[in-house]
């Protein structure tokens, strides 16, 4: 596996990530501002600044298997506060895609499942059908009645449509999905 072959060059993992998203983890000075600012740090197994440190010391496996990269909500607080100008949220995004590419056991499988069901809704209709999305996710995660009370409430307010309405040009959407690759230019 690729993670095992990263042992010869101490810069290898950092350089791979740099090539994928132009974000240089070696700039991180471990000030901890990202961790202090992160609204989800309490639930993360590795704190954002620890993720950066792991990248610096070529420790790819803990990073690619941690819950952090999936729990990151892309709220961009870390990116906007980083004194070194590192776009940490972009880096998290890149790490998610590398984790999937390498087929590693992932920290938060249900989030990957949700993302896939969400994208499948776009692929089919061109738009997201919210009720269908939540129902399919609940079935996939074997919790069919999760948030059912909210579903009823929202239906009562006329805020959920029972059926999906597709856009006209679904052929282009299917083409976009067929051609899309994990990373641009890779």
């Amino acid at each position, binding site marked *: 596996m690729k993670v095992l072959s990263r042992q010869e060059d101490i810069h290898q993992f950092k350089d791979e990530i740099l090539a994928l998203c132009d974000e240089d983890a070696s700039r991180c000075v471990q000030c901890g501002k990202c961790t202090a600012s992160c609204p989800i740090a309490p639930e993360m197994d590795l704190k954002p600044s620890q993720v950066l440190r792991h990248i610096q010391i070529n420790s790819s496996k803990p990073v690619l298997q941690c819950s952090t990269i999936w729990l990151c909500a892309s709220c961009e607080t870390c990116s906007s506060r980083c004194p070194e100008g590192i776009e940490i949220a972009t880096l998290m995004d890149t790490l998610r895609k590398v984790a999937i590419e390498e087929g590693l056991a992932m920290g938060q499988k249900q*989030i990957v499942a949700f993302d896939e069901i969400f994208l499948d809704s776009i692929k089919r209709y061109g738009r997201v059908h*919210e009720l269908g999305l939540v129902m399919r996710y609940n079935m996939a995660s074997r919790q069919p009645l999760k948030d059912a009370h909210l579903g009823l409430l929202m239906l009562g307010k006329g805020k959920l449509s029972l059926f999906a*309405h597709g856009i006209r040009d679904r052929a282009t959407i299917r083409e976009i999905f067929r051609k899309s690759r994990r990373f*641009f230019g890779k």
Partner: protein
Amino acid sequence: MKVGYYPGCSLESTAKEFDLSFRTICKGYGIDLVDIPDWNCCGASPAHQLSEELAFALPYRNLLNAEGANLNTVVSPCPACYSHLLHTHKTVGEKMGLSSRLTEMVGRAYQESVASKHVLDFLFRDIGVERIRESAEKPLKDLRVVSYYGCLTRLPGVDIDDAENPTMMDEIISALGAVPLDWSHKTECCGASLSITRTDIGLRLANEILEAAKDVKADCIAVVCPLCQSNLDMRQPDVEEKNNRSYNLPLIYLTQLIGLTLGIDFKDLGLGKLIVDPVPLLRTKGVL
């Protein structure tokens, strides 16, 4: 004045009242909103989490359709939709080879003619605070409002206000005759992207935000994001139960508050669709 409009998926469903109230107030200001023809989902978080190319190609098709309809400006109510259109537009012009790759994926070339705006920016700069103040026939007297921006001002490509302490919405609240309150959580993340998959985290963050609003004795929270709104409104009863608290804080879209001052009917602003009922509060304050 003709302006392009990109409602986005949430505004067809859980945030119908945001769509309704924005369309209604635009009519009041004489603005003709033209939907992007046959628009598609921007891809939201799942696209950029799983595929970089998909995250560019989906907004790219919307930019193409807007351009095809000669819409030079497109207004989006959802901060995520807005950021994805804006970021794609900017990156196409900056990143070598991206334009040709997207043209190949979507089948047409984009001439980079579409300027994206968020609803807040459009209200603040295009309609203008002064016009909003002058047209407020029924000012929101004594209504104590905290403005909640969430992550809007930090999203990729966005540069409309101070990232740490934005004030655009507060200035509009003040123009409406209401009392804008300073508070600690105006730009904190609501965790909506985890609301379904890690509801525990969404509930914790919602509780912190609601508590901060209550601390400054707010009557309600003004919002400009469909995801912030539903996370804090729809889940508020669950947050209250879990934390043994009573908040009863309506989450009112800024467009609905503006509509009230224009004297627009409650129903035409979709105020009945909010989960935390704003009616008792608005009656007490003499707004309804």
